[in-house]
């Protein structure tokens, strides 16, 4: 029983306890889930220490015990520098989301908080699983609570969105399942580390066509989750209709399941196929960056605007991964975390506005800065972080991705940088329409400033934005150590798409961070 096992199973235990709580005492349920999820967060912080003391870069805090004898399926979990931060992101956002839902969820309270804990169990598991079967189990398990969160507690078109969300993911998952079984039949194991080693040293022989098809099967499953243009159509629906906590978990953590899968499984296992496909994948990612930003600009609905901005931001992550450079990988991972913090915060702030005014239409606002100056200030900081202002977190990630892209093919970074400019346009315009101008009488009455609970929610996130934007070295070295291990074997044949590479390519993110 390691610390990691505790972080994985405590949410499940908390979920089971919360099911047993009496349903007519909502305060007890709220407090229990807040205390439980905060405790899990504190326990999960212990992972950072254990990670650094043991062999950074590689998989650590490993548990590997048999689960099902035949076919040989093992409960094999571990973390490395990539999953470490995603796990902590999940455990951090769960108590925050529970606080967000404190008053805004007023029906079926017990089930809501129980589902939040079950969701945490699934999400933490996805990032820790090393066994493919286990990974698939967690992948699907996280789907069920999110389906209910959207479908039961969402807005008007919640049912349509929940079903669409479930079916999209399900189709991708089924392709992934075929690929997982196919890999098992070729290798005799579900263990990712063994499969990877076998693929790299050639003991698992797959023809290049097989590799390509397997790559595509995994890729489609992950690309739906990311979501990569043109598979993104479920996302605006799901985000807009979900309750605030659901949107936050969906955007901040669930989308990362896709990009995490790309980086962890797709690229290292099938580097040749990934390189063959990288041309059109990067094209789609860049289309996603620009398209997402353009569509975000014309949205009349705040949540939809933030949702499309996610499509744009996640395009950067995919772009970073498919540059196959150290900077690109580091930037992609960092951008996953950044997006989790800043877009999560944006959804929370939009939720605050919704709690006050019960509308998501931008047209219903205007002049909010006058009655609620503090809310406007935190919104401003979050928005600037999302745009990518230096000193705030997104800048670092986007910069690294753009640099990685520029090293491979300069034009990529030109088009991708267009997305950064556009993000400034839609965000600033949103801010102007919502917060500036004259506040109507009606709005002033319904717009109290932040209360204590809301401070408790948003201040940690703002602090993280500043921290991640200035003290990058608290995060990047651990990420680099792991991405370098992924990149190492791929790097050998890197000349396929490399043109115009001015900088020495082995410049590790660690040095970069130090140089800054």
């Amino acid at each position, binding site marked *: 029983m390691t610390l990691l096992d505790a972080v994985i199973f405590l949410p499940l235990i908390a979920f089971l306890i919360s099911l047993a709580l009496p349903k007519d005492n909502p305060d007890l349920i709220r407090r229990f889930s807040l205390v439980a999820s905060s405790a899990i967060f504190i326990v999960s912080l212990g992972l950072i220490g254990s990670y650094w003391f043991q062999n950074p870069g590689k998989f650590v805090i490993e548990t590997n015990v048999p689960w*099902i*004898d*035949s*076919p040989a399926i093992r409960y094999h979990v571990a973390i490395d520098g990539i999953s470490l931060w995603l796990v902590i992101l999940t455990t951090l956002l769960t108590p925050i989301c529970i606080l967000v839902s404190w008053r805004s969820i007023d029906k*079926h309270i017990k089930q809501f908080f129980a589902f939040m804990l079950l969701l945490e169990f699934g999400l933490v598991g996805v990032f820790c699983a090393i066994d493919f*079967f286990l990974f*698939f*189990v967690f992948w*699907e*398990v996280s*789907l*069920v609570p999110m*389906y*209910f969160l959207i*479908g*039961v507690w969402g807005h008007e078109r*919640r*049912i349509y969105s*929940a*079903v669409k969300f*479930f*079916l999209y993911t*399900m*189709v991708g*998952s*089924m*392709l992934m*399942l*075929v690929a997982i*079984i*196919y890999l*098992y*039949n070729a290798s005799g194991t579900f263990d990712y580390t063994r499969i990877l080693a076998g693929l790299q040293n050639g003991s698992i022989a797959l023809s290049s066509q097989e590799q390509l098809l397997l790559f595509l099967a995994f890729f489609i499953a992950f690309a739906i989750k990311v979501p990569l243009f043109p598979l993104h159509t479920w996302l605006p629906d799901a985000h807009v209709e979900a309750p605030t906590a659901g949107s936050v978990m969906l955007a901040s953590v669930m989308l990362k399941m896709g990009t995490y899968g790309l980086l962890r499984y797709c690229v290292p296992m099938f580097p040749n196929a990934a390189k063959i496909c990288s041309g059109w994948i990067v094209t789609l990612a860049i289309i996603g960056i620009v398209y997402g930003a353009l569509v975000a600009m014309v949205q009349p609905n705040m949540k939809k605007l933030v949702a499309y901005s996610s499509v744009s931001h996640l395009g950067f992550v995919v772009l970073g991964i498919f540059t196959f450079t150290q900077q690109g990988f580091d930037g992609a991972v960092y951008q996953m975390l950044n997006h989790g913090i800043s877009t999560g915060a944006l959804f929370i702030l939009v939720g605050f506005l919704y709690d006050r005014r019960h509308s998501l239409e931008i047209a219903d606002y205007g002049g909010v800065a006058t009655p609620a100056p503090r809310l406007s200030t935190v919104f401003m900081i979050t928005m600037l972080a999302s745009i990518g202002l230096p000193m705030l977190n997104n800048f670092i990630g986007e910069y690294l991705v753009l640099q990685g892209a520029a090293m491979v093919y300069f034009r990529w970074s030109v088009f991708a940088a267009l997305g950064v400019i556009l993000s400034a346009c839609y965000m600033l315009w949103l801010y102007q329409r919502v917060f500036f101008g004259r506040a109507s009488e009606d709005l002033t009455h319904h717009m109290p400033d932040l209360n204590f609970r809301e401070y408790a929610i948003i201040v940690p996130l703002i602090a993280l934005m500043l921290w991640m934007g200035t003290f990058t070295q608290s995060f990047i070295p651990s990420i680099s150590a792991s991405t370098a291990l992924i990149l190492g074997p791929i790097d050998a044949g890197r000349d396929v798409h490399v043109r115009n590479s001015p900088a020495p390519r082995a410049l590790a993110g660690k040095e970069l961070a130090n140089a800054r």
Partner: protein
Amino acid sequence: MLASYVPVGVDYLRLLPEIIMVAAGTLIMVVEPILGENKRTAFSSISVVAFLAALAAAIHANSIPGTSFSNMLIVDGFATFFRVLVIAVGLLSVLAASQYLRREHAASAEYYALLLFSVTGQCIMAAANELIMIFIGLEISSIATYVLAGYLRDDKRNNEAALKYFLLGSFATAFLLYGIAFIYGTTGSTNLADIRNYMLTPGTESNVILASTAAALMFVGFAFKVSAAPFQIWAPDVYQGAPAPVTLFMSAGPKAAAFAVFLRVFMTAFLPIAARWEPFVWSSALLTMIIGNFAALTQSNIKRMLAYSSIAHAGYVMVAIAAHNQIGIAAAMFYLAAYALMNIGAFAVVTHFSRQGEKYVNIEDLAGLGWKQPVTAGLFAIFLLSLIGVPLTGGFFGKFYIFKAALDANLVWLAVLGLLNSAVAAYYYLRVLVVMYMEEPGPATVSIQPLSAGIRTTLWATALGTLILGIFPSVLLNFAQSSSALVK
């Protein structure tokens, strides 16, 4: 050698489950007039005891494996697996039915007696080692089930279901019998091992055409019984028309037993000509999945929806047969067990919810059940998620294992199309979840009564079973794997 035709003690011991159930069924028929009107609850107790005793006898028989009655029956792991399964299905059907029968004022002895006889037939099918025994078992099981389908004899839908089932069923049985005759004519034997040996003997190649014709005819018979396309037409009407607890039984027990003989015949006697039948089973499997899943999408009646879903699930098991390898057999066995549990659970909820005269059998009627009866709805949700194939449920692991078998046999396209089919299937199961949890309670949910003890036991037992098979599949899987090497 004459002595071997006289049955010895151990022969009877191997047949003990069937003997117990026939005796109990007969006893129930005999004592009904003696007991009179007010002692009707005794019948369900007698049947429960009989099923439990048969269960113990079936498990005990596994410790004395071998053939009995001059090679007519065989007790091996495979037979034990299916005997235990169908007896358990019978037991759960009794538990789920008693309140329903009281509600419909039909709690007479025949129901229990017929159920016992039907399960007896299925046990014989599971243990049959030659074609005549298979036929006898199939007939015992089917005739009892025809009557059960029309059990509420004043109900029009029941009558229609029974008649349709009977006419089409007898037609299909005729095909089966014709196939058996062909085989006997060709090979001179009805024993499965002898048939296989004959086909493996050099110099019999010219008879392969005849043997394949026989296999095709028998395929028609079996495909009808398991409701595989293109012989699935009867299933929706019969499942919808029959009383809910009978549908519960029909969709699990007879289907499992029919698959047992299907597997045994095709994986022993007809294995030498597998290359000839594989394409047919392949296409039938795909067609079954597609028809079942796409037809279920548009159903508004929950019994009919589950009927189509049961067709689709038969398609998944057909995939395992198409793989015709040992993993395929184990996968089919595991899946049928998981399927029986989740389907019985789902139909038990329908039985509970439908109320007198099966008034509430539309999906829309379930609106808001999740908040009116959280436990019932929660358990129903487990069954539905298992039917979708969400991990940590038996349905997922079964499906996973079946498609693993298919990929082992290089049926990549069948696996891909089958799994995409199950994504389609997710839609109609989700619709039930949507109605239960995301819509406001309607009149049917508001007037809901508490669960009866029998149905509660059924629901908890099947839900626990579904979860155990999903989380610790090894408990059953190891047994299925060790008994999937059929005696050849």
